[in-house]
């Protein structure tokens, strides 16, 4: 990773980087110029005596015209260049593969044209253009992958699109860039760019390539639950160290008796936890906002079991 701009991992990065470089050269030039002149004048014309002679210069049309025209030309070049690169960002090729994206407080859901779904992990194939069709279930979110140089706000009530062709195999951070509430900074996901072979295997459902799935068959349910806790966005709202974030903390949750909004109370056991994951608003604990989305169809029964096992370990 270079120090000033992240590595480029999409077809769009190069043109964005080129214009960025141009703007940077222009900016550095003018910054150095102005600073140097300022410092030079400050030294040369510093007040040495009270009656130092000064020149009576009020204006100079030639100089003023020149330094109005030069920035104007440069700015127009930057505008035009930025626009050209922007057009590329905005216009996906026809052959792009579509992926549906749902952003909600505070997780990402991806649905592929094969019907496969994934949560907080976007799988794409190297060198194959992808078109994301994105909607939000609640407030404005923004899809941002720094290495791809793409960003698009996702609005509730309409579809937004974004496209890119990943050029490098690897895992890249996907960040929510539009402030969306208390879980905003935890609304992170990853984009997994797979080689064509790996992608084909993944599509077939043979997920052995996938570290998480691999772990699923070889680790205890509680450990699997721990991974799910961070991958599936639970951590945005539920702490494991007793802090109150948005929802109740998981620490010492199992076996506790919670007071509900309707005045009754409930013992937190396996069934209550399962119900709360699938139907969060069925039994609301007193004093918490009804913001949790349902994980029905997102987390399998097996995964819910793993999560419950994990919660049980948090004492």
């Amino acid at each position: 990773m270079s120090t000033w701009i992240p590595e480029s991992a999409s077809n769009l990065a190069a043109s964005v980087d080129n214009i960025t470089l141009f703007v940077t050269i222009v900016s550095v030039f003018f910054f150095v110029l102005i600073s140097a002149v300022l410092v030079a004048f400050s030294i040369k014309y510093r007040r040495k005596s009270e009656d130092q002679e000064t020149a009576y210069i009020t204006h100079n049309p030639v100089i003023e015209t020149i330094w109005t025209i030069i920035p104007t030309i440069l700015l127009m070049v930057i505008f035009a260049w930025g626009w050209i690169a922007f057009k590329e960002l905005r216009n996906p090729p026809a052959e792009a593969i579509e992926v549906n994206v749902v952003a909600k407080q505070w997780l990402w859901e991806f649905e592929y044209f094969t019907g496969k779904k994934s949560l907080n992990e976007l799988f794409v194939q190297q060198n194959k253009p992808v078109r994301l069709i994105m909607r939000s279930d609640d407030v404005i979110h923004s899809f941002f992958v720094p290495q791809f140089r793409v960003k698009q706000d996702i609005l509730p009530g309409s579809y937004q699109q974004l496209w890119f062709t990943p050029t490098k195999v690897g895992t890249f951070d996907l960040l929510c860039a539009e402030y969306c509430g208390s879980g905003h900074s935890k609304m992170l996901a990853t984009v997994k760019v797979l080689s064509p072979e790996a992608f084909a295997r993944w599509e077939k459902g043979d997920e052995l390539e996938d570290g998480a799935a691999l772990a699923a068959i070889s680790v205890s349910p509680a450990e699997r639950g721990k991974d799910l806790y961070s991958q599936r966005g639970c951590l945005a709202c539920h702490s494991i160290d007793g802090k109150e974030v948005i929802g109740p903390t998981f620490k010492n949750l199992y076996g506790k008796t919670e007071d509900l909004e309707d005045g009754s109370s409930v013992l937190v056991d396996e069934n209550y936890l399962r119900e709360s994951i699938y139907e969060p608003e069925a039994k609301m604990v007193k004093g918490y906002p009804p913001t949790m989305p349902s994980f029905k169809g997102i987390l399998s029964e097996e995964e819910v079991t793993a999560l419950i096992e994990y919660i049980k370990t948090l004492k």
Partner: protein
Amino acid sequence: MSAHNHTEEHHTGLRVYAAVCLALFVLTAVTVYVAKFDFGDFNIVVAMLIASIKAAIVALYFMHLKFEDKLTWIYALYPLFLLFLLIGFTIMETFTRVPVIK
């Protein structure tokens, strides 16, 4: 300075004000009347045109804009320009949003 201690007073007469008032009544009747006809997309244009004529009459005569200096005119018209800008660009932005074909 004390020699010019009064500003121009525009003693617009009762007759002018009455005529203006009457014109406004008539235009109100006209706008209600024409609303009964359907000009398609021009309904709003017609209605706004009549309203603007009425507004102009109120401003020019009742509010004496007719007798005001250039400066007042500028500051009476500039907000209208900004209003058009606000409405125009907002509408332009809203209706040029690219529909995502799904």
